[in-house]
């Protein structure tokens, strides 16, 4: 083990949150910052030759090498877990920028009641009407406190969209159900493609309030407050699972790295796999990492920022023995609790006209929030929270698209009849998609697997996770809503209703894994305080979606960036001036 020269701040993970924190630190203070990223360097220039569906969309060339590290999964405490051997339900990224390079770019603000979920649900429905295993909590921070930080994140990325609630004034064509915004989006909404246009028309006709998905894809050339210029989206459709080859999609490599590179106080070390946070007497003293050649290092640091993807944030604390592991039987302990994913669903719809669906962008679409959060829900049928329903023109690619046919149009899924039916329906299929809130439950949590290990021999994380009756109600509601809108779009709705299947690790759902190191007002029920400072180790900050006590319908990146900026303010304005516990 080689001891390295001490730094003021060591940041673990070079993705959105770690680099956003680094940027604030080096541009607003004089501290020295070292970011440790286990993957390789990345830049926009790397992405020009990546417009290849097979290697990137099918084989997932940008993801973490799952042969080296994965998770295990079981449905309940009674089951034994097995490893996720090939990527399925979510896709962790690697390299500079992390999953922020290959993300889709959907950039929602969470609604204000999400941040006070326990209080809100109890007031609305009464504690007796909430499921006994419900684990939702208040965040310890409110929407109003985060609003300026949302605005910071939107400006940094140049998010395109249309405001629906500007300081309380509702604006038609935007999301009128959103919480009040201080500013309209930095850039106007993207153009719409045919399928999302049809959804907009139909939803409007039915009295809903469709609005364009807020997108971290620029609708026009834009220069952000840091002076970073990026071009408008070209609608090539190579977004999700790809890096953007022109930089129209905001990625850490094209927004944060150009700023960080100018600062001498910032260093980035790639190929550096942090394996332990070293601590004694309630203080982190630094981090231990292994480089690409297998050599081991100790990096001393005054402050440690743990800012990897949700999974590794939780795992590093387990491996470093920081905090109290959660016990689902007693409900005691905090590390690993409140694991959530996101509820997907909806319905497939079939048109008799071509959609030219190969054009698009990952986050190009129209959606409705008429039933988002608890909007329009009484809770009497047990449905407490729903989400958004959307129609997207993501840029369809031919391997993934081929073979989408209405049930009954071929007896088999191969051979002449199947081929002919697939050709007949080619470019005539779309989806109405739910992005639904996944509430947290006592039994869904993360701990260490007793059997399986990573390439170093360290235990893998184990997910105990399954859907509950509430998520099945969300699936049913989404299908029924889609079945109302689809025909008005001129489409036939797939007659297969939701199957109420168990959680599976095979089919992609979203890379929105949250919780495990949640924030909150009490050390008895959260890992970090409302400033994302660890309750037991005050010079350790754990940032990212691992801090979300439950999933909101919206995709988490924008909120992860907003809480990062909120935490950065706390570090810079309070902690560095007077190191100690902020709560």
């Amino acid at each position, binding site marked *: 083990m080689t001891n390295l020269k001490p730094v003021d701040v060591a940041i673990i993970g070079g993705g959105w949150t770690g680099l956003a924190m680094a940027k604030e630190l080096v541009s607003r203070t004089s501290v020295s910052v070292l970011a440790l990223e286990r993957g390789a360097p990345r830049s926009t220039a790397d992405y020009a030759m990546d417009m290849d569906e097979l290697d990137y969309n099918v*084989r997932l060339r940008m993801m973490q090498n799952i042969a080296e590290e994965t998770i295990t999964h079981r449905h309940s405490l009674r089951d034994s877990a097995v490893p996720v051997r090939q990527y399925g339900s979510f896709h962790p990224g690697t390299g500079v920028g992390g999953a922020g390079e290959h993300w889709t770019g959907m950039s929602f603000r969470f609604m204000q009641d999400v941040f006070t979920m326990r209080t809100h649900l109890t007031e609305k429905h009464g504690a007796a009407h909430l499921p006994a295993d419900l684990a939702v909590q208040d965040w310890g921070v409110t929407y109003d406190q985060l609003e300026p930080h949302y605005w910071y994140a939107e400006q940094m990325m140049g998010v395109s969209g249309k405001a629906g609630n500007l300081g309380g004034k509702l604006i038609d064509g935007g999301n009128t159900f959103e919480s009040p915004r201080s500013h309209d989006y930095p850039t106007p909404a993207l153009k719409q493609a045919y399928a999302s246009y049809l959804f907009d028309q139909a939803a409007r006709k039915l009295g809903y309030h469709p609005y364009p998905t807020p997108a971290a894809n620029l609708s026009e050339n834009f220069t952000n407050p840091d002076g970073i210029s990026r071009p408008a989206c070209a*609608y090539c459709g190579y977004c999700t699972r790809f890096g953007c080859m022109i930089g129209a999609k905001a990625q850490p490599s094209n927004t944060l790295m150009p700023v960080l590179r100018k600062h001498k106080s910032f260093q980035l070390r790639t190929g550096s796999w942090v394996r332990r946070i070293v601590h004694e007497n309630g203080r982190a003293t630094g981090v231990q990492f292994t480089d690409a050649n297998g050599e081991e290092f100790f990096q001393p640091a005054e402050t440690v920022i743990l800012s990897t993807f949700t999974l590794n944030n939780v795992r590093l604390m387990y491996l470093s023995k920081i905090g109290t592991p959660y016990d689902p039987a007693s409900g005691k302990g905090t590390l690993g609790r409140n694991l959530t994913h996101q509820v997907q669903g909806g319905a497939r719809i079939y048109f008799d006209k071509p959609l030219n669906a190969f054009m698009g962008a990952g986050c190009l679409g129209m959606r409705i929030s008429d039933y988002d959060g608890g909007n329009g829900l009484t809770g009497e049928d047990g449905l407490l929270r729903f989400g958004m329903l959307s129609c997207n023109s993501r840029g369809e690619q031919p391997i993934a698209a081929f073979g989408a046919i209405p049930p009954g149009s071929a007896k088999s899924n191969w051979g002449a009849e199947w081929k002919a039916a697939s050709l007949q329906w080619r470019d005539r299929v779309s989806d109405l998609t739910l992005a639904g809130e996944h509430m947290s439950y006592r039994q869904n949590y993360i701990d260490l697997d007793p059997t399986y290990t990573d390439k170093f021999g360290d235990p893998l994380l184990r997910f105990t996770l399954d859907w509950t009756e509430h998520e099945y109600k969300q699936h049913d509601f989404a299908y029924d809503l889609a079945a109302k809108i689809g025909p008005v779009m001129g489409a036939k709705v797939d007659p297969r209703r939701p199957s109420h299947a168990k*959680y599976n690790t095979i089919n992609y759902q979203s890379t929105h894994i949250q919780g495990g190191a949640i924030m909150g007002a009490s050390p008895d029920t959260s890992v970090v305080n409302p400033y994302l400072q660890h309750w037991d180790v005050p010079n350790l900050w754990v940032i990212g979606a691992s801090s979300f006590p439950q999933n909101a319908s919206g995709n988490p990146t924008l909120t992860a960036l907003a809480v990062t900026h909120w935490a950065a303010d706390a570090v810079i304005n309070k902690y560095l001036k007077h190191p100690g516990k902020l709560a």
Partner: protein
Amino acid sequence: MKRREFLTIPAGALGGTLLYTLAREPFLLRAQEGSAKDGTVKVPLRFFTAGEARVIAAASERIFPSDASGPGAKEAGVVIYIDRQLAGPYGADKYRYTKGAFVESVPEHGYQAKANPRETYRDGIAKLGVNFDELPVEQQIQKLQSMEKTHFFQLLRTHTIEGMFSDPMHGGNAGMIGWQLVGYPGPRMSYREDIDKHFGTEFRPKPASLEQIMKRPGKPWEDEKV
């Protein structure tokens, strides 16, 4: 040293731009060593033996047949695509978690067994029989139907679709025949002027491959050293 294996196919059967498909193999249709004067080409194989390649060529053709609705696996060169995938990191499970214990689990956990795609194919080909390609078509279909539930068949079906529609640099979709079949234009840098037009009518730009639009050689993952 392993004897070099070739797949012999009628030149006319393959999309028409086989030369492009084989861009990374120094290879010219006319000048190729050992090429027959009878209008056939010999494609150098990376993984399969010639016999195995014939079996997989026939089986993929049953999955995606060349028929009245358009060209199929034969014209696209699907077997060449599969051969390269199996020879590369994917075939060797370089990027799959392959630590034990291997235990059977519920269907929600997907494929949990130890065998990598290469082993699965070798086993599957043995079950199809080395003379599969010589069987009458109806018997080939029956045989595949009897194996529909196997991991091998599911891989073969998936790979056949991939070989039809992946960028030609991967060895299939010869001459972009698969893209032409479904009206996919290939990767293109911009639809800024088209995204909100052509509503309800077919917009079908002429396909171009990644190497054609970028004007430089691609780096397909299957070429990575295993």
